């Protein structure tokens, strides 16, 4: 069962998640836990030679986005933990990270169900790394189907998503509604 998905379907996961004691490789794409971020940034960006390493960080869903901001231009990916699908803090954290200017890849990791996929994308996430047991029960098709279920939402200001309020106004003005 593929474990990484984005809005187009299953995705190749080129990232390696490092544990507390794993050594930093010389090249590749690695996700470090938050408490190793400083160490990783030093290793990658302060050496004289060009590093071949792409850096990502995995953060709990109560992480302080302001403390991460300093590292935005060093981070190619931020992975936010979703410990339980009913714990919706990650949605606001994702929104905050984007609002603060994070331009890299935003990943949700953990327990997310198909019905939440659209919310993740609306909150600025690019991809979802599913926990094994969840992935076993919920094939990718469920997630992609769920995306199509609600064609438009009422809320404005969500990039990549058509707002009913704006579509209404466009319809009134006789112009084509802004595409998704």
């Amino acid at each position, binding site marked *: 069962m593929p474990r990484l998905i984005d809005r187009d379907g299953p995705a190749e996961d080129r990232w390696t998640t490092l544990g507390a004691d794993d050594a930093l490789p010389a090249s590749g794409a690695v996700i470090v836990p938050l408490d190793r971020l400083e160490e990783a940034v030093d290793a990658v960006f302060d050496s004289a030679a060009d590093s071949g390493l792409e850096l990502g960080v995995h953060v709990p869903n*109560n992480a302080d986005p302001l403390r991460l901001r300093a590292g935005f231009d060093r981070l190619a990916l931020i992975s936010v933990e979703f410990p339980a*699908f*009913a*714990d*919706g*803090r990650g*949605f*606001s*954290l994702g*929104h*905050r990270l984007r*609002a603060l200017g994070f331009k890299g890849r935003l990943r949700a990791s953990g327990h997310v*169900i*198909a*019905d*939440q996929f*659209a*919310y*993740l994308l*609306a*909150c600025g996430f690019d991809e979802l790394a599913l926990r094994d047991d969840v992935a076993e*029960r*919920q*094939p990718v098709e*469920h997630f992609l*189907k*769920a995306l199509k*279920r*609600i*064609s*438009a*939402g*009422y*809320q*404005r*200001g*969500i990039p990549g998503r058509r707002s*009913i*309020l*704006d*579509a*209404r*106004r466009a319809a*009134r003005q006789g112009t084509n509604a802004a595409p998704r």
Partner: protein
Amino acid sequence: MYRYDEFDHRFVRERVAEFRDQVSRRLTGALTEDEFRPLRLMNGLYLQLHAYMLRVAIPYGTLEARQMRMLAEIAERWDRGYGHFTTRQNIQFNWPKLRDVPEILEALASVEMHAIQTSGNCIRNVTADPLAGVGPDEIEDPRITAEVVRQWSSLHPEFVFLGRKFKIAVTATEEDRAALAVHDIALQIVRSEAGETGYRVLVGGGLGRTPMLARELRAFLPKRDLLPYLEAALRVYNLHGRRDNKFKARIKILVHELGIEEYRRQVEEEFARIEHGHIAVPADELARIGAYFAPPALPERTGTPVEFERMKKLDPAFAAWAAQNTHPHRVPGHVAATISLKPVGGVPGDATAEQMRVMADLAEAHSADELRVTKEQNVILPHVALADLYKVYRGLVAIGLDAPNRGLVTDIVACPGLDYCALATARSIPVAQAISNRFADPARQREIGPLAIKISGCINACGHHHIAHIGILGLDKAGVESYQITLGGESTAPAALGERTGPGFSYDEVPDVVEKIVETYLKLRETPRESFLQTYRRVGMEPFKEVLYAEAH
């Protein structure tokens, strides 16, 4: 009232299809019960003691006749012939089967109704003054704001999995008829000194295990800032509200633990950061919604309503009902009439399909096709001409809903309690019935005057007992029902939470206890016009405590 456009229609239809799919994924096991539960709750479907329960949304308590008729049809086709109107202006059906729910939702969608977000850890039904558009004292119809908030809060992708339920209420008058003080966020429409219309924003009210009154978050918020401000307030709550303990997860706890100054600072900081123009309701959309709430064309009827006066003389029961159950209307010659769903000895807030149909007919013929549901579990016909009031009254007599008891001792609010609810610790409905029967005599009820009794069958306080003049909370003490009494609660400003009298009483003792309290009040009041609440505020708890625990162990 608001009418769905193609976008609203498509939204609810898609939601029904989504729920159908969720049900089938539940049945195959693709979704566990733990995963399915919040999804079904977000479509208003609870699992109770005897059956599923479907809570249908009645946005800001407003219904039109055809919608009430559909509720009657649902009651008959898929339930046991009745429904229950709730303390948040919704309606509950107690016996649907899971496999029938998608069809019920489709039937609701056909009349622009749904059950979206009536349960679950999300933003719930936005409630409002049930006299919206009626009261001469209102600045503007609060339902326009309520509708804006309803749309904004519907499947808001960031706020669908909050720490706990989130309740919002809106009013536009000085008199608070929507219990703003006990809502998570409340909006009172006000005018600034410069004459600009905006909102006084309150935050952190709530009932349940730790009742708290809301604090003022913003004295004046310009109208155009409403949605960005709500986003900021919700975002701070979603990020920082407690998630470790279900009983500490409401925003009232966050405000209490941070302090209102710190919570406000965080909200204002987030609000400043948000791109308002991207989020706010465009002016033309606001105007579009506002147009739906234009007052109905009611002919001004000045001069003496001759027929009305004549029938009051001929039918004293009608006179009593008109005196007690009507509210002044801004259009001369009209009133808002309360249909009491509290017949003496009846189940508070329940209505049969037949009763719903008659109410719908009366609304269509005599109330500009509109009805309102109140948090006291009654129904209001908001636009009745005095000239038509007797016809309305006779229609209510025919279906047994003519009790002239609005706001009186038999106008009891009761949650479903242990007869229905899986969370309950004690029965509430039969307690309400016993009290009601005890005070059946209409003359005695009038003598007692305004007295709000509210009964909750557990600590979750869905019966709103904390804001009752006499609150009754049913608990379980070692397998035996024990009822705690609180006095002096009130929902309108100045709001107050009831104070406990002391040790609880048994199921059989409760009607006697209420009688003792009432008798004490009648003895202590300075004049017949001094209400129970006024007397309580003057004399305090002591005299009542003495009487209740006089034969203390």
